[in-house]
């Protein structure tokens, strides 16, 4: 019995329970705004959005794996592709692409041209340092960490800052093998 290959992002999205994107977009916006009110510092808001994303990512990874039928995430290149093609589609309903691989295959860009998080959003002048979509970088970092890949995720382009797309640079720092968790003391 050969294992079935990964399901396509489109198929998973089509069969998933879906909700109005407005609810999601506005909720995220309201959270960002409340964080700015409560934390005051834009830098701190960036940090918290990333942390929230990380926490979301470590949960979401299992839904991603279960629904996509992806059974191995050993190769960073393959993993980045599947996140962009399947992951973004099955959750956000949009497709991302992977580009800008470096020579040794440990750094790439995930590019997003359509992003439901920013519908209606215009950054005010007081928030110029804000990475509005920072939750996304956290999600990717968290999800990859769960499949043993320690990464650093940074924004290279941001449409809210006038760029023509959203671009996340994902750099693989190391792959962490599974250690035997018990000490041999008993």
């Amino acid at each position, binding site marked *: 019995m050969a294992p079935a290959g990964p399901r396509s992002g489109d198929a998973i999205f089509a069969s998933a329970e879906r*909700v109005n994107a407005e609810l999601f977009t506005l909720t995220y916006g309201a959270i960002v705004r409340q964080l700015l009110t409560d934390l005051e510092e834009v830098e701190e808001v960036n940090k918290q959005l990333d942390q929230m994303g990380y926490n979301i990512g470590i949960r979401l990874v299992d839904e991603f794996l279960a629904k996509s039928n992806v059974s191995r995430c050993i190769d960073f290149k393959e993993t980045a592709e599947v996140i962009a093609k399947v992951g973004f589609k099955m959750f956000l309903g949009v497709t991302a692409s992977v580009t800008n691989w470096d020579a040794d295959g440990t750094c790439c860009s995930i590019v997003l041209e359509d992003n439901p998080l920013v519908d209606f959003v215009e950054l005010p002048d007081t928030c110029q340092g804000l990475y509005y979509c920072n939750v996304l970088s956290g999600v990717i970092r968290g999800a990859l960490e769960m499949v043993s890949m320690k990464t650093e995720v940074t924004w290279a382009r941001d449409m809210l800052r006038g760029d023509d797309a959203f671009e996340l640079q994902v750099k693989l720092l190391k792959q962490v093998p599974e250690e035997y968790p018990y000490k041999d003391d008993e």
Partner: protein
Amino acid sequence: MGREVSESCVDSLLTELVSTYSTRFYANKPDLAAHSIEAIGYQVGLQLSERYTMDRPRFSDHLEAIKFICKDFWSELFKKQIDNLKTNHRGTFVLQDSRFRWLSRVSIDPSENGDVSEDNPAGVAENKASLVTKMHLNFPCGIIRGALSNLGIPCAVSADISNLPACSFVVRIKV
């Protein structure tokens, strides 16, 4: 048909929102956490009511606006209507959703202690679970309050979950 995202996006955002505010920011100040979560819901309710009332005639009274919340508004959010609406005719309305979607996956096992937590009696865990659940409800309460306020009906909204997964939202209109 408008844009859609997977339900998990909203669910995981809400779970994380509640945990961020109630365990990371304001671990010992549940009132502050509740206030911020409600404020987030309020803004969302305000904006959604602006969007969802766009193509309809104006409501002629409070009841009509409340009915709109129960039917069209609720359907936009949860693909179902409020199951039961009651009023005392003196400004209090009870909106009951017999299976409130945002709580439908909330579950703990009251019979089991979990074998690694002998020092954590089931009662304590259950109590904590109910606090977390209540914290979650600040968000939908805020949404309802925001939506009604924007329709010109200032009110206070609370939630009753004595019959999970049913959830009742109690709207008290301010006069």
